[in-house]
């Protein structure tokens, strides 16, 4: 356990995870529901011919792979940042109510809106997440402490959950509840490049806000007073992390539905590899999240289980045992 032997894998961790995430993105493009002649598809796409093969490559497989990467990175990064902010390994991005509100926004705008386009759903979700963030800060106040934030998040989650149920109850489409239950389990199926163009900029801004919080999260390891004495303002640190999470995760939920456990498990798995420093955990968790979501999406398509499993179901099945392990370890430490 010498210092030198620990820093080497730490230095290689981010590049290794980044390469893995990009490799899985490429693999995801190659995997689908029907055999696709990739060479022909690429040639046609390059020549600008609208053959079904080229269209499937450009309009279906590429957006799906890219969204898998973006959504996974958002969930992993926001999870790591939220755990750092709340100084709790059981925290996840949904804890402050962003995901629930995004789902509510999507349902409301979709089932009660007019003028349906393919971006109606994600735009509604983003609006819901934005509104929840404003309500969160209004509820918790500017100098809000951690407990107040979590309580406000619980309140928003509870409200969003029951309001979603109410909306589905009153929706004009009798199958709305069924559809939305499945949608909420998360899926990357049949998304388009328009989803990518909508999500990518918002997520990127969220990522920058979260990464900018890294030094502050490091300082927070030693408590709020010490962090302040090291030159960090807690109110602005909370603003960065929560706004960044709302942008990244709110958009992710809006585009793909809720994909659970990624934000919880990925930071937990990688924490020891970066020596537990919360700021150093952010970038590896982003790429780790990308790896997890892409791997789950590939598994969903290749498992042969039909009807196809939902993405959130797969990540939860894989993630839940890690959560049990985490709780087990926490319990042992307390006794």
């Amino acid at each position: 356990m010498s210092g030198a032997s620990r820093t080497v894998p730490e230095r290689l961790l981010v590049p290794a995870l980044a390469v893995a995430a990009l490799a899985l993105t490429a693999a995801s493009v190659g995997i689908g529901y029907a055999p696709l002649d990739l060479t022909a598809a690429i040639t046609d796409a390059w020549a600008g011919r609208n053959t079904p093969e080229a269209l499937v490559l450009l309009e279906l497989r590429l957006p799906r792979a890219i969204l898998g990467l973006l959504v996974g990175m958002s969930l992993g990064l926001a999870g790591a940042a939220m755990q750092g902010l709340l100084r709790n390994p059981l925290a996840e991005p949904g804890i402050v109510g962003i995901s629930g509100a995004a789902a509510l926004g999507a349902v409301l705008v979709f089932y009660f809106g007019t003028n349906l386009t393919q971006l109606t759903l994600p735009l509604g979700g983003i609006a819901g997440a934005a509104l929840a963030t404003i309500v969160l800060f209004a509820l918790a106040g500017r100098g809000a402490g951690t407990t107040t934030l979590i309580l406000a998040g619980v309140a928003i989650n509870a409200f969003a959950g029951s309001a979603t149920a109410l909306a589905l109850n009153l929706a004009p489409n009798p199958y709305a509840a069924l559809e939305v239950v499945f949608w909420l389990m998360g899926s990357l199926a049949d998304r388009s490049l328009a989803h990518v163009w909508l999500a990518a900029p918002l997520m990127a801004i969220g990522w920058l806000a979260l990464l900018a919080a890294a030094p502050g999260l490091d300082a927070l390891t030693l408590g709020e007073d010490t962090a302040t004495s090291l030159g960090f303002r807690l109110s602005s640190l909370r603003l960065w992390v929560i706004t960044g999470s709302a942008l990244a995760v709110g958009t992710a939920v809006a585009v793909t539905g809720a994909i659970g456990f990624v934000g919880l498990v990925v930071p937990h798995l990688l924490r020891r590899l970066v020596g537990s420093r919360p700021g150093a955990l952010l970038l590896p968790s982003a790429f780790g999240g990308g790896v997890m979501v892409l791997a789950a999406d590939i598994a969903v398509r290749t498992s042969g289980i039909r009807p196809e499993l939902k993405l959130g179901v797969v990540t939860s099945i894989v993630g839940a045992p890690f959560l049990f392990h985490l709780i087990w370890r926490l319990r042992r430490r307390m006794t």
Partner: protein
Amino acid sequence: MSGLEARGLALGHGGRTMLAGVDLRLASGEMVGILGPNGAGKTTLLRALAGLAPPMAGSLALDGTPFARIADRDRARAIAYLAQGAEVNWEMTARAVVALGRLPHRGHPKSRDDETAVAEALRQADVPHLADRSCATLSGGERARVLLARALAVRGRFLLADEPVAALDPLLQLRTMELLGSIARAGSGVAVVLHDLSLAARFCDRIVLLAGGRALADAPPAVALGDAPVAEAFGIDVIRHLHDGETFVIPRRPRAPPIARSSDDRPSP
């Protein structure tokens, strides 16, 4: 006007007055002990001096510049603060914890001596052998020393330490006080909250004695820890023992009536 200076400092929390007009000046090269009974406002005063709690009234200035006009990070580089307790939330190594003291220096031209500063802080606090241990596996005393090293790694011109010897055995208490004294002699201004009257009398250049949010005394130990102020502040009689030119002040017994503290909800007899 060099030094860290508070004038007429008043602070409250939840309607309760914690500090009611305290003056304090901490100059470079001196070691000031802050003493007083529980609830006297010692921690509040130290937090205010570190810029952690904005005062309701009074002024705080660093080398004559009001705190409000100093950037957070500049203030953080100048004033190191060691909090009470030993909070370390993640299982980081001691070295990584100490390195957190360098955060105010990030992006600063001098940041190249980060590693030197961390190594020196570990050595000063006598914990280089613990550098690669996880903080979760350290004893209370070891962890307190590592956190002291963290504060030293800031290399601030002022060091404010809240009960740095509370968790330490007698040997480490002495070592820590010697270390703080040497840091003061090397040119930093050190303010330290203590409960041990003897350590305060032997190692501090000056004592600020607080009670009920007011300074009862701000004077050299021989004056501030005299019978009258100690009796008024703590409600105790002490034994004084002179040995090799150093004064040892040992609590002997409570004064009658047993605990005669002035308090809002208990009228003094």
